[in-house]
């Protein structure tokens, strides 16, 4: 398999993971108008929790679901007890999420030590699958598939259900949504938990590829930020496209310009911010 194909597969896998991470980030940003700087920590915490669950004999998929749920519960507590108190003060909310990310990182360091922990690839997805005469790592294909399934599920949730319609209304015009009787504050909690769950789940799913180590949060958060700025906040399509763009930029950037990998990653984001501040797929909100 040629180098380019390997890079492309890795890019798609990273894109899939980033979609899981950034879909929630984007929804939170769209609805609550804040970049949730704990999102990278949720990703890392989910992965760490799963390593402990797996060590206690849970299988990989249960660990991924439960790890995600624990992170979602934490997200709910954060939103209810802290962010809620600061409603309307967006800057304070951002700073609180930054402070919380320091705390979570340090707790993870204390509990799981500084050594990287590998999560084993789940049985049955090891090895390679041959597609059109080419061998692809099975697990990476599985991640791409999971991302596609989640994208479809999220789309259905947002576009086809009553809750989704309420969330979209909240993203577009929270004041008007309140006037017509939608409890926007409850949506905040729901979306925050959902986003935290997706991030935690993504952390576990990404574990076999990335493994878990201190600093993983700080690596994933800027990527999610880039995705959301490229794609536009509150837009699912934007997150999807942005994730794959970032997946490719990151992998190809590292392979072709190893010294300038981060410039390759952040420069497009900067250009988009300057030229089209609402993002490629974002709409100008009221």
């Amino acid at each position, binding site marked *: 398999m040629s180098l380019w194909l390997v890079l492309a597969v890795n890019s798609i896998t990273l894109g899939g993971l980033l979609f899981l991470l950034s879909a929630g980030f984007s929804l939170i940003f769209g609805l609550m*108008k*804040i*970049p949730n700087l704990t999102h990278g920590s949720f990703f890392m915490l989910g992965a760490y929790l799963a390593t402990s669950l797996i060590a206690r004999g849970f299988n990989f998929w249960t660990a991924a679901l439960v790890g995600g749920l624990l992170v979602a519960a934490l997200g709910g507590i954060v939103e209810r007890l*802290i962010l809620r*108190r*600061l409603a309307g*003060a*967006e*800057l*304070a909310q*951002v*700073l*609180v999420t*930054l*402070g*919380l*990310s*320091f*705390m*979570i*990182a*340090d*707790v993870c*360091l*204390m509990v799981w030590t500084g050594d990287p922990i590998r999560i084993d690839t789940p049985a049955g997805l090891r090895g390679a699958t041959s597609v059109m005469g080419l061998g692809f790592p099975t697990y990476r294909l599985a991640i791409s598939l999971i991302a596609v399934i989640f994208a479809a599920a999220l789309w259905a949730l947002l576009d086809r259900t009553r809750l989704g319609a309420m969330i979209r209304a909240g993203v577009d015009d929270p004041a008007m949504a309140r006037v017509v009787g939608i409890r926007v504050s409850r949506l905040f909690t729901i979306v925050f938990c959902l986003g935290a769950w997706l991030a935690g789940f993504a952390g576990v799913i990404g574990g076999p590829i990335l493994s878990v180590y201190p600093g993983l949060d*700080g690596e994933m958060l*800027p990527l999610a*930020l*880039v995705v959301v*700025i490229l794609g536009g906040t509150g837009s699912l399509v934007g997150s999807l496209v942005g994730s794959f763009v970032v997946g490719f930029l990151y992998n190809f950037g590292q392979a072709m310009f*190893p*010294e*300038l*990998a*981060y*410039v390759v*990653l*952040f*420069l497009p*984001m*900067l250009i988009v*911010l*300057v030229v089209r*501040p609402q993002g490629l797929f974002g709409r100008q909100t009221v």
Partner: protein
Amino acid sequence: MKRLALVAALAILAAAPLWVGGTYYVNVASQILIYAIFALGVNVLAGYAGLVSLGHAGLFGIAAYGGAKLMSAGHGQVVVTVGGLAVTLVAAAFFATLSLRATGLGFVMITVALGQIVWGVAYRWISLTNGDNGISIGGRPRPFGLSLASPAGFYWATFVVFLAAVASMAILVASPFGASVRGTRDQARRMNALGYHVWMIRFLAFLFSGFWSGVAGILYLYYNQFVSPQMVALTASAEVLLMVISGGTATLLGPIVGAGLVVVMKNVASAYIERWNFVLGAIFVAIVVFMPDGLVPGTVRLGRWGLAAWRPRAPSAVPAPGEDDGR
């Protein structure tokens, strides 16, 4: 009364190497002053202009990297200092041009992106910045033949720069330009209607802020005689912002108190508390949630409230003696 207190405070600070005891604490004091200069610079934007930057560690680091590169090219201290500051000012102008297209959270995000680019270059562009290994420089400069090699000598040199920074802030705040900066924060549209060039005012405030961040960066380079990507990481930007916010934004004293608090916590407390980052995060959260306007205004308000409770019949229109709102 106020002037007397100021003179006394300055005397105590100037004599710090004589009373803190031990070179370790003198070095901590130098660090506090360096970070206080940095925090004062960030405060110009975050406090007076209402533009919160999470990328200022980039400017802090550009100054240090610029200085380190010039020094390893064999230039003297004058070229290193002036060159490092010139590079920082150019970078600050570039940062400002891009980030001032937005205000509020948009501004925050653009500065994060810019800061991360600087970090990426510092971390990955190994032929330029030596990557994770950083750049070491040999020895501290000797301005006017005075040696800064000793902790006390370096402290006094930093103290002089610190005084210049505080004085420039005091002049800025009292000047018409300072008033117009606050005006663009509070009522940008009215300022515009009154004929002020809002963008230019913000741009100049950004340059001023970048300049002092650069000065702090150069001092930090001389202090550590080493630069590494750590210096330009997002956590570094967050840390200095914490200093400004914990002390109290848009006050002169706030960033200094905040710098003292954070540096002391980091250096002294981390010797006793292993989980320093947790404490830092917890303080950050607590201050934002419970004391949103920072320690200095918060304490002043608490003090005022205490005074009022102590003397219930004191005429409220007359300010209590020695009262200082920290501006």
